[in-house]
């Protein structure tokens, strides 16, 4: 998933530029500012020299590895989940925190504002019944206690951007904007799933062009969601992805479709399809199937079939996104129809992408099956002006 990380890094730096460029407008498409820089050039501009690289499988230690890995250029904490209010009203949520280092060496300067880390956070709440999608973004420097990530005394992590915070395990997620917010507690009931080769997720031929990557695929969740100023008790399942790397992008890749699905039979399925510019599936696409007991089986690009069913054009950005899929894992005799719980779950801030709650219905070995999850669709828009 370093594509995702890389894209995020690129996007974060791009967002920084736009922030600096400002023009008082958060939406780049209306900004009358500087010419856009291509993401590749931006990434090329942030030298990898001086940062640690993911060269070989390492030993993961928990909860310590939930904490920050400042030797690497990029890392992120990524939470998504599907929740239900006692009355049956469904909600999706996303809380993500990205750290991106701007320089390898920590600053030795007089000012406490000096930093080498930039932080970006996204909060989204999908009110399925209300047909509303609330998305927010924040940026901050990793200095002065405004944003940061540190290991707690008990070995867990506290990562925050202003008053949005992630702490755990067990995890407590708190983030609020006027009228909208989440305050959730996430139980860890299964061991972390190490992605790729024992947590080393290779992205290309070059050594070190890889990331360390693990997931907590099923986190029973309780707490409250605030929508339109109304605080609602909710419960459901969350999913956490963690990754850190100093990877570079490879040419020819255009974007990705990423799925994190929690099935009612207790299994969890993650799959990402890397789309190449010519429209084909990149051979680095991969996934994982986690059994009810936590046993994980890696899926290669050839193990999964993905077909688009339907499309949705964003009225805000004009971008055409797929809006439904047929996802099959022949080896598991699994055939699923995945569809968005709400079409309009597009982030239109400094970075444009679609990330939203999805519903799953299908069969496993002929037995009907349902589930919920999250999908992320990136790289669909035209390059930023």
């Amino acid at each position, binding site marked *: 998933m370093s594509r995702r990380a890389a894209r995020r890094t690129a996007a974060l730096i791009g967002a920084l530029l736009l922030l600096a460029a*400002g023009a008082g407008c958060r939406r780049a498409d209306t900004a009358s500012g*500087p010419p856009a820089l291509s993401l590749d050039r931006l990434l090329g501009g942030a030298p990898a020299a001086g940062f640690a690289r993911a060269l070989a499988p390492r030993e993961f230690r928990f909860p310590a590895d939930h904490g920050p890995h400042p030797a690497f250029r990029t890392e992120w904490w990524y939470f998504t989940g599907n929740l239900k209010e006692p009355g049956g009203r469904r909600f999706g949520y996303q809380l993500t925190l990205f750290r991106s280092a701007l320089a390898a060496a920590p600053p030795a300067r007089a000012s406490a504002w000096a930093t080498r880390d930039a932080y970006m956070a996204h909060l989204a709440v999908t009110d399925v019944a209300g047909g509303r999608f609330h998305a927010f973004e924040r940026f901050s420097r990793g200095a002065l206690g*405004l944003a940061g990530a540190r290991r707690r005394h008990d070995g867990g992590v506290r990562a925050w951007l202003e008053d949005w915070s992630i702490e755990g395990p067990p995890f407590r997620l708190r983030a609020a904007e006027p009228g909208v917010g989440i305050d959730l507690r996430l139980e860890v009931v299964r061991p972390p799933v190490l992605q790729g080769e024992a947590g080393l997720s290779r992205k290309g031929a070059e050594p070190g062009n890889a990331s360390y990557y693990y997931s907590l695929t099923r986190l029973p969740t309780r707490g409250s969601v605030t929508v339109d100023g109304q605080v609602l008790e909710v419960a459901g399942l969350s999913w956490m992805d963690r990754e850190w790397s100093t990877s570079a992008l490879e040419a020819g890749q255009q974007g990705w479709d990423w799925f994190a699905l929690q099935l009612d039979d207790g299994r969890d399925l993650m799959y990402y399809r890397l789309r190449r510019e010519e429209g084909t599936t990149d051979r680095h696409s991969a996934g994982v199937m986690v059994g009810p007991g936590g046993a994980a089986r890696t899926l290669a690009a050839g193990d999964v079939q993905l077909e688009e069913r339907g499309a949705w054009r964003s009225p805000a950005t004009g971008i055409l996104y797929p809006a439904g899929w047929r996802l099959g894992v022949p080896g598991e005799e699994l055939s699923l129809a995945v569809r968005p719980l709400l079409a309009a779950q597009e982030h239109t801030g400094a970075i444009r992408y679609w990330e939203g709650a999805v519903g799953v219905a299908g069969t496993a070995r002929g037995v009907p099956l349902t589930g919920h999850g999250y999908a992320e669709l990136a790289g669909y828009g035209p390059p930023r002006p």
Partner: protein
Amino acid sequence: MSRLLWRASRRHLTRHPWQLALSVLGVALGVAVAVAVDVAGDSARRAFELASEAVTGRATHRLTAGSAGIDEDLYRRLRVEHGLRSSAPVVEGWVELAGPPRRGLRLLGVDPFAEPPFRSWAIAAEGPGGAELDVGRLLTEPGAVLLSAETAAELGLAPGGTFKLAAEGRRHVVRLGGVVEPAGGPARQAARDLLLADLATAQELLDVAGRLTQIDLIVPPGARGEELLSRLRGLLPAGVGVERSAARTESAEQLTSAFRLNLRALSLLALLCGAFLIYNTMTFAVVQRRPLLGTLRALGTTRRQLFGLVLGEAAAIGGVGSALGLATGVALGDGLVGLVTRTINDLYFVVEVRRLELAPLTLLRGGFMGLGATLLAALPPAAEATATAPRQALARADLEALAHRLVPRATVAGGLAVAGGGVLLALPGETLAASLAAMFALLLGCALLTPIATLGLMRLCGVPAAALAGLLGRMATRGVVAALSRTGPAIAALTMAVSVTVGVDLMVRSFRSTVERWLDYSLPADLYLTLYDTPAGRFAVAGGGLGPETVDAVRRLPGVEGVNTLRHVRLGGSAETATPALAIELDPRARSAFGFARGDPVELWPRFERGELLLVSEPLAYRRRLVPGSLLRLDTPTGELELPVGGVFYDYASEQGLVLLPRGLYARRWNDPTVTAVSVHAAAGVDLDRLAVELRRAVGEDRRVLVRTTRGLREASLEVFDRTFLITGVLRLLAVVVAFVGVLSALMALQLERVRELGVLRACGLTPAQLWRLVTQQTGLMGLAAGLLALPVGLLTAAVLVLVVNRRSFGWSLELAVSPGTLLAAVGLAVGAALLAGLYPAFRMSRISPAEALRDE
């Protein structure tokens, strides 16, 4: 008929080109000075507004804490703990490019992550040099800054290039990380004087780690905003206040309004000179043509037509003069703006004017003033031209008789105007505008009194002139009296013009001599050790001064008998809204540095040192209407402090006013042990130069410190004073030029008109040499009369400016100093210009033959 009239008018004017040119010049000069002063003032104000706008952006409010600065943790707490997200931290300061050319820039340190809602900075991805802007490096690299593309080009800098600057007395080498391209319009203008940097970089350059200059806020309008503000006030630590963003510009406006009003008054004096000259010109043009006008009336021209004719001429002269004046004024304003800016920078706040602001209103006002003054000045002669019967108009003798009959009336009117002005001045608590109106009334009254004074003077001069120059001398004095219709207005105009130069000159001298005397007693120590030498740096952020260990080191030096410490500090508010204060600890010897306008020093000092009262400077007392016993409330980082005002002292260093605090109280309540200046009393017989060297050594490596002797500091202070008053000096010089031109034009025209009279004299046997003497004697006499009469009027003007206008604008008590040099120079100016004015007519008259001169007959 009316075409004929206009042709007659045109002929007359073109046949007297000197007269025409000089009257146009008179109008033009008056308008030019007024417009120049306005343009310069407008430009300075607009530059400040733009700079404020660029810095304020879309912020509606700001948190400030005077020079104490704001603890940066407040920002974190507001954002992280209280979720107050529409906030942006700002560190602001003034830096100077090491040059050449030396140039001031406003350093604005911001957090790019918090900026977008507040300010619009478009950062060009590609700089002029083609180098790519690296935002990461801007944040992570110490000393990385941004400039506007224009400024970078002006300074010949390409992104990646390094340059030197001085900030808070220290030198730094910074790197141009890229160029900013603001959206356009005003922001673009203002960005030319901005040095933009990451907040961390700005803190480091300005040496204020841990502190913010302000926290900008966007507060929504209405009840929600009020609620937010009241919640916010509950969260703020002591010493930190909320102010509206607009307060800064308003305050700057208020601060400089008295200064600008004063300038405008001076420029109006110049215009008044111009108006008198115009009046003189128009009167002259009418009386000169009385025979022609009489003939026209006899031929059936109506009064209305004649009235229109005279006013039409005035309008033409006024129009052309005003147009010329506007053009000259703008050019002159370009020159003056530097002087105005310097004064503002020395007295008020730092502003850098890069563009001349040509407000249409200013130009319109200048044009109207020129045209209006001309028409107004032409009204009496126009009325006179139409009021007389045709037959009378043809007789010169009648006119002169009428002129003499009018003298008593003018005297009465003048006396009334003077009395009215006096009453207006005597009224207590009047506004500055009223004082200025009174001054103009006085001047007008004096002008009306000049004819009678002239008659008296000529009678006085008659005897000695006759004794010295015989018949010719008597002819000269009698000639002035006999031609009163012409000489009266001319002498009045000259008197006014010269008196204005006397008044302004005496005012500046009085001011300077008062300041000199004040400096004599306000610098009682032997050596002065001061931090910074710029107004911007005068108020170092709390904690940024010299530490107690430095003061102790100075105290311990052999040869040092006593030490005074000073701490400049801004109380509350941002740079422009704060009250300057001085926390002092004085050796008893240095108490003499403060002269009290109110209060008894013997009683005040012990109570002051016990922290029981505050002392305020005269301008502050005036501005805030403070008297001994008034309570003054100060916000301190440890809570509010309310103390009575004990006394009011003289101070000419700050027009904004100054509060004196005892040092112990300041250190305790502001948690700041540092000082910004130390002065030393040396033991008798100590070599001050050597002691200065040792003081320098005691201070160590601190390069911000200047060590100066009393004389050095005195000279530096007077240098600032002279710089501040340079603009006034220039205005005085312009008034002198207007006066000079006035004398020249009036008298030259007068003599040129005497062709016939002088022709008769020549025919009667006057030699060319005698004619020279007669002409120059007469113009010289008139110049002398104007010069002498200008002295009392000038003294009166100076007295009003010094004792009333300055007091009401700035609250300063000044002593009127009369310098004989100024008075002599004024008389010299009048006589010199008058003699010069006689040269050409005398030359011309002596060249042409009497027959030719009499050909009219």
